[in-house]
């Protein structure tokens, strides 16, 4: 491997010996990072490698215990984001930091020193923002309220925030998680435009494919340390995977994830055996199911069916009714019309608890918001949803001993890393929280399993774990519906993919016919050409 120490004459940004601890956790252990001028610098690593922490230190959100930051050859002290902004550092966070009730313009100008007498001139700023967005190919309506925007557009708002402040270094933390392939391409285009105007970009991801597509230089982190910096031209995906994961045995086990989407350069999925589950009985039948969104507007209107043992994918750009669809199918959101039956039993209209009893299991997209009781222990979290069932109850009381035994065996079976079964869920990492949610879903022995973005934000081993479990569930006859915005994931796992747009199914593809660009076309709402 080639140590690419100094890409330019004098690097734009240099971080040296950064150390950061959170209580007992050493998140960064003497990390160095050098970002040259006019480059897209990839920051690659698994979950908890410390990528976000490092950038938060740079942005002044975290204060490092040790270490020096040099910008333009000048040592700088960054105590808070205000300092970072004044030094020309901009950051797009993994969870967008936006005030939902504000307009795009308000979100962008927030924190600047706009004159206010006799009142703020937001119109003038809106024009400036419109101009910026055309210049970098990030078009968005400056007067729209942020809460109404799709994820992709909110992403642009975040980038515009940094550009508006005249950033020299732009940090993007996993910006592609929610984007369609087209949107990813357009983002990469914008990144190129940004670099061409003299800025540098730090691009955080765990997707090797993306780093290969856009980065000039790559730094790989693992376990709070930098394990290598390489030029893109001088490396291969396998080498990067090796650096990321650290041990070869593991690399081999997770090749599926590492190579996702890369085997066929045009984006065709690996042509494994063609669709096979065609004759199994239909376990789930959904017809004319209509669900409204939180504002009472119809958001999902679908008919579909899933056979036992089949994994059906729902592809679509976030915000096209997936949340409503998932919740309606899980019995969480009341349906306005239509029916949904599992093994012939109609569930529409009954309370959520009946759906759970009926064998529906749901792995929600937002695991922190919808999936766990953060302050409660693993035991309690695993009981959630089954508290009224016979399993954990004796008379009117919960049998905590049995619940505890169940938790302990789940911890083993799902390799949940936790100090003990009574650890509060909030203390666990994202991957482990997802494992709890999966353990809970599978313990119901579901007839119908709904997974919504189950691997979002998970690293390679955890992602592989989810894939394995999902396949195992299908193999045991469960009907699986996988709603995902990650086309690699869908093409990898699914027997069939349905594309939703504006709450309706606009297309269907079977395994063997997958073409990511074509799917992306459908996802963008363009009529089916065929």
């Amino acid at each position, binding site marked *: 491997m080639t140590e690419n120490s100094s890409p330019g004459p004098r690097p734009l940004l240099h971080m040296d010996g950064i150390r950061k601890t959170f*209580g*007992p*956790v*050493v*998140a*960064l*252990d003497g990390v160095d990072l050098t970002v040259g001028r006019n480059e897209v610098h990839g920051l690659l690593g698994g979950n*908890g490698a*410390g990528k976000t922490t490092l950038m938060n230190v740079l942005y002044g959100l975290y204060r490092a215990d040790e270490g020096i930051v040099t910008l333009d050859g000048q040592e700088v002290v960054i105590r808070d984001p205000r300092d970072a902004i004044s030094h020309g550092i901009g950051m797009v966070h993994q969870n967008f930091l936006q005030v939902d009730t504000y307009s795009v313009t308000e979100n962008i100008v927030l924190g600047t020193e706009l004159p206010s007498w006799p009142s703020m001139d937001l119109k003038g700023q809106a024009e400036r923002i419109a101009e910026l967005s055309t210049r970098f190919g990030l078009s968005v309506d400056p007067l729209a309220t942020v809460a109404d925007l799709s994820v992709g557009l909110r992403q642009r708002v975040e980038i515009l925030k940094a550009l508006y402040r005249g950033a020299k270094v732009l940090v993007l933390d996993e910006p592609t998680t929610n984007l369609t392939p087209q949107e990813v391409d357009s983002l990469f285009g914008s990144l190129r435009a940004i670099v061409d105007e003299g800025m540098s970009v730090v691009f955080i991801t765990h997707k090797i494919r993306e780093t290969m597509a856009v980065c000039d230089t790559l730094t790989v982190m693992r*376990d*709070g*340390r930098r394990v290598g910096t390489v030029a893109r031209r001088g490396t291969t995906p396998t080498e990067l995977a090796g650096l990321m994961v650290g041990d070869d045995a593991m690399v081999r086990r997770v090749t599926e994830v590492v190579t996702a989407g890369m085997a066929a350069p045009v984006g065709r999925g690996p042509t494994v055996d063609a669709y096979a589950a065609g004759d199994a009985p239909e376990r789930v039948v959904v017809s004319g199911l209509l669900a409204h969104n939180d504002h009472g507007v119809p958001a999902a209107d679908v008919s579909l069916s899933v056979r036992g043992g089949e994994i059906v994918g729902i592809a679509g750009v976030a915000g096209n009714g997936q949340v409503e669809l998932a*919740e309606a199918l*899980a*019995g*969480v959101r009341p349906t306005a019309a239509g029916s949904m039956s599992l093994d012939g039993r109609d569930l529409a209209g009954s*309370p*959520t*608890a009946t*759906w*759970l009893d009926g064998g529906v299991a*749901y792995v*929600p997209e937002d695991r922190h*918001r*919808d*999936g*766990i*009781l*953060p*302050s*409660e222990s693993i035991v*309690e979290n695993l*009981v*959630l*949803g089954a*508290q*009224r069932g016979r399993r954990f*109850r004796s008379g*009117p*009381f*919960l049998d*905590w001993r049995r619940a505890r035994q169940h938790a302990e065996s789940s911890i083993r079976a799902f390799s949940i*890393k936790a*100090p*003990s079964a*009574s*650890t509060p869920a909030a203390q666990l*990492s994202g991957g482990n929280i997802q494992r709890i949610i999966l353990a809970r879903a599978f313990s119901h022995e579901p007839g119908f399993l709904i997974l919504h973005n189950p691997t979002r934000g998970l690293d390679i081993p955890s992602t592989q774990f989810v894939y394995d479990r999902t396949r195992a569930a299908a193999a045991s006859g469960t009907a699986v519906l996988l709603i995902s915005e990650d086309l690699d994931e869908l093409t990898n796992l699914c027997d069939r993919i349905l594309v939703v747009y504006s709450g309706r199914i606009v297309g269907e593809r079977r395994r063997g016919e997958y073409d990511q660009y074509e799917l992306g076309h459908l996802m963008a709402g363009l009529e089916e050409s065929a």
Partner: protein
Amino acid sequence: MTTTTAPVQTPPRTETRAGRGNALARQVLAYVVAVLMAFVVAGIIIAALGHNPFDAYRAIVTTSFKSGFGLVETVHKWVPLVLLALAFTIPLAAGKYNIGGEGQLLVGATASAAAGILLADLPIYVLLPLVLVCGVLAGAVFAWVAAWLMDRFGINEILSTVLLNFVSFGIVDYVASEVWSDPAAGHPTTIPIGEGGLLPLVGRPPMHLGVLLAVLVAAAVVVVMRRSVPGFELRAVGANARAAQVHGIRVGRVAVGSLVVGGALAGLAGAIEVAGVHGKLIEGMQSNYLLLGIIIGLIARGNALAVPFVAFGIAVLEVGSSAMQRSAGVPSEMVLIVEALILLFLLFSDVVGARLRRSSR
């Protein structure tokens, strides 16, 4: 390499009884330190006002413990405090703020008094249960109004419970000065309820059996909160309402239910005040139980098991406050300040505790 790196597996915290005992001891210690600090600071203020803080504190402590009478009075005061603290704590577990304990207590007391007066001639085994049940139901219904406004109209429960308290003042004033008023009382007061409606007294000096009732209720609340299915659902809603809903818990119902149960407990407090202490409805009988109940609930950090103990401490303080004024000449307002200081120091003891634990690692 052997340096610790993220994510570090903290050594499995062994869930031994000793470990848990340690944690408990630390918590109790925090309380003790906070109370001591509060008394030290208040003592300085008392001294600055020209009084003797030691006399003042002796008065507080001795009132409750030097005589059986003081103890009984303290225990009698404890009953409404513990019930109102639970009336606040239970909805709090579901993330709802019941600021209406005062109104619920008063309406409960009104209903109890009404039953006790209208059916004064019934024998005790009929009338007493009736008096208590009426109080409980009325408190529950009054809380339900706020819960219904919250559930059906999205009206914030803090707003509605605060306003309903003011409504209850009018109700009590009306009943006590127009409906069954006792003209000889010199204050809005109803005529006494029937003999059969009074809680039996036991011991010497006499203690009413409402104390036993309160103990049982507090114990039941602890068991229900920790072990029962509704208790689990309540905690789940409080911990994360969305997740609870996704997993089949009817969040709205749980929230409404928690407020109604809170109201029922406050109503019971009112009933016991009528049937055990006053034998009638008196304007102003709610005292400052609401605020003290909230304070107790907050000091106990919503832990139902801690509530009775904290409530006892506050009862001692409240009963002792007049003694402090009496024998040391300290203005009774000092008690308010002492209570404020206890709260402040308790919270600060957390911060200090966390710092110490961090630095000792």
